[in-house]
C-alpha cells in the first residue's frame, strides 16, 4: 500500500540544505538589525533632545520665577509709603497748591491717560518651530555623524 501523506510527513527525517534561502534569511536578519539599530539610534537621539528641551523648560521656569521674585521685590521697594518716607528723608515735602504754577501748553491734553501695558506675547508655534527641510542624503549624513560621534566618545 502506498504511503499516506501522513506517513510521508512523519517519515521525512532529513532536511536539505538550501544555501540561497539561508543567505537570504541572513541578509534579512542583517537588514532588520540595521533598521533596528537605526531606529534605536533615532529614538535615543529623540529622547536626548527632548530631555534637553525639558531641562531648558525647567531652567526657563526657574528664571521666570526668579524674575518674578525680583519684580516683587522692586514693587515692594516702590510702594507709596516707602517712596514718601524716603522723599521726606532726603528733604522733599508734599507740594501745596500755592507751590504749583500752571502753564498753558497748546495741544496738551489735560485728560489723564493711563499706561498702555503690553504683555510679552509668546511667539506662535508656527514661527517658533524650525522649518523641516532636510533631504534624505542629509539625514543619512547626520546619522553617520551621530554614529561616528558615539564611537569617538567610546574611545575617549
Amino acid at each position, binding site marked *: *500500500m502506498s504511503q*499516506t501523506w*501522513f506517513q510521508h510527513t512523519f517519515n521525512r527525517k532529513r532536511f536539505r540544505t538550501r544555501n540561497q534561502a539561508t543567505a537570504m534569511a541572513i541578509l534579512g536578519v542583517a537588514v532588520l538589525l540595521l533598521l533596528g539599530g537605526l531606529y534605536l539610534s533615532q*529614538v535615543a537621539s*529623540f*529622547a536626548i533632545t*527632548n*530631555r534637553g*528641551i*525639558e531641562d531648558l*523648560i525647567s531652567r526657563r521656569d*526657574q528664571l521666570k*520665577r*526668579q524674575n*518674578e*521674585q525680583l*519684580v*516683587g521685590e522692586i*514693587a*515692594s521697594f*516702590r*510702594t*507709596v*509709603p516707602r517712596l*514718601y518716607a524716603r522723599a521726606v528723608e532726603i528733604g522733599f515735602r*508734599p*507740594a*501745596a*497748591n500755592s507751590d*504749583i504754577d*500752571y502753564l*498753558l501748553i*497748546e495741544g496738551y491734553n*489735560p485728560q*489723564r491717560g*493711563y*499706561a*498702555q*501695558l*503690553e*504683555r510679552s*506675547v*509668546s511667539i*506662535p*508655534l508656527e514661527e517658533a*518651530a524650525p522649518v523641516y527641510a532636510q533631504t534624505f542624503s542629509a539625514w543619512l549624513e547626520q546619522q553617520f555623524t551621530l554614529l561616528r560621534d558615539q564611537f569617538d566618545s567610546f574611545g575617549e
Partner: protein
Amino acid sequence: MQGPSPQKSIIQARLPFVAVFLVLMAAYLVINLANFQFFPRSVRQELEKIGSSVTNTTLRVPAERGLIFDRDGEPLAFNIVQYRLGVSPALVANDEALMKDLAAILDINEFDLFRKISSENVWEFIAGPISAEQGQAIAALDEISLGLEEIPKRFYPQGTLAAHVIGIVLDEGLVGSLGVEGAYNDTLSGRVLDLSISNVPFYLPEDRPSEQRGKDIVLTLDRDVQFWVESELRAAVEEFKAYRGTVIVMDPRDGDVLALANYPTMDPNRFLEIEDPSLLENPAVQDAYEPGSIMQVLTVASALETGTISPYWTYNDTGQLEVGGQKIYNRHFQAHGTADAATVLIRSLNAGAATIGLEMGTAQFYSMMRAFGFGQPTGVGLFAEVPGELKIPGDTNWSESYLGHNSFGQDLQVTSMQLITAFSALANDGIMRQPRIVRQVIGEAGVEEARPTTVRRVVSAETAAIVRDMMIRVVREGASGGFIRGYTIAGKPGTAWISTAVGQEYGEHSSIVTFVGAVPAYNPQAVILVKLDRPNEYYGYAVTPQVFKRIADRLVILLEIPDDDVRNRLEAAKTDISTDGR
C-alpha cells in the same frame, strides 16, 4: 498482505475530524482577529488608553494667573512660587549631613528634622510653604531623597493698599474672592492644562494652547490717590472714633473709580490671620445702609426734573410733618418758616424733603429713585455687590410713611457705590456713566479696552446745574468745613440714624454720616464720597466736611486740577489763542 493495525485504522478514521476541527478553530481565530481590528470606537479608545497608560504620563501645566496693575502700570497683584518640602527617608544616604543642610536653610529644629529624615515611613512632610529662595537653595543640594512641590501664591506688593478692591485668592492661587480677584476670576485664572507625555520614546508635546495663561487686568485706580485717601480715612476714623469708614473717589466724566478705601482694612498677603471676618467684606459695595439727609439732594433734583417744583418753589416749614401716620421732624425740631428748595438742602430740612416727596407722589418719586440706580447693583466690577433695598408701593411692608422717610434717606438701603454713582450723574450734567474699576484686559490676543459707557440720562443738564448751584450754597452756608481755598465746591453732608427693631439708636456713636462733594463745582473732575459709621459726633456736618476737605486738598494736586482763578485765566488764554489763530 497484512492490513493496517487497528490503532492506525482508528487514527486514520478520526484524522479528518481532527483536521476539520482544527480548520474550524483556525477560521474562528482568523474571524476574531479580523473582528478585533474593527472594535467599536469606545472599546478601541479604552484599549488604547490602557496601552498608553503604560508608556505615557500626564503632566499638569498650572494656569498662570493674570496680573493686576493700577492705571499707571504699577503692579498690584502678581504670582510667586512657594514650595512644600518632603523626604523619602529610605533614600537618604547620609542622615546627619542632610539634617544639617536643611536646618541651615530652613532654620528649623535639628532634632525634629532628624526624626523625620530617619523615620520608617515611606514619605515624610518636612516644611511648607517655604519661600522661593529656600526652595532654590534646597534644589541646589541635588538630593534625590527630597521632594519639592511648587505651590503657586498670589503676592500683593502694595500690602494693604486697595486691599478690598484687589481682593484675595484662595485655594493655593486658584480661586479669586473679594474685589477684582473675585469678580474677574474667570478672566484672571486661565486654564489648567493636562499634557500627555510619551515616555517610550520620551517626547514633550509642543501644541500648548496660547490662551492657557490668565489675562492681565489694568484698574482705573490711581495708586497715589488711593494712598492719600487711605491715609486720610484712617486718620479720620481714629480722630472721630468711628467704627469704620469708606471713601470713594470717582471721575464723573467716565465713571472711573480713582480710589476706593475702607478702614479698618486687611493685608491680602496675610488674610488667613484675620480674626474679624467682616474685614473680608468690601463695605463700599457690600454694606447697604440708610444714607440719611444726603438723599435730600436727589429728592430735590427729581422734583425739579419732573416739574413738581421750580427753583422758586417755597413752602411753610413748621419743623414737622405727618406722613402715613408717622411724624417727621427737622434737626433739633426747628421750624424755618418760608423756605425754598435750596434752604431745604442748606438746613437739611427733613420736613421740607418729605413735603417735596409727597408733592411728587409715589410714581414719580420711585421712578426717579430707580433712575438714580437705587435697588440695583451698579455693576462696577467688584465681587458680591449688593443691590440695596428700595421698597416701592406694592412691596411687602411698604407703607405711606416710606415715601416721607425715603425723601430724606431713611427706610431705604443703599451702598456707597450707588450713592456716588448717583451724585456723579448730577456732576456730569445729568448723564450717569457706568462706574467701573477695570480699564483694560490684556490677553495673548491683545488689549481689550473698556470704553466709558453711559447708563442713562437721569436729569437734564439744566436740572443738574441748578442742583449743583444749590450744593455750592450748602458748602458755603451749611457745611463750611468742606470749603477749599481757591476752589468752588459743591457738596452735601448727611446724617442717618441707625434703625433698630423698636425705633432708632440714640446717644454717641449712633449715626452714619456721609458727605458727597464735587471738585471743582463747575466742570467737576472728581466726586468724593466720605462715609463714617458711628463717629463720636452725631451730625455729619460736624465731621465729614473736614475729612472731605483734607482729601480734596491733596486730590486737586494729584489730579492736576488748577484752582478757579487759574482755570479762568487758562480758559481766557485758550480763547485768546484760538481767536489769534483764526
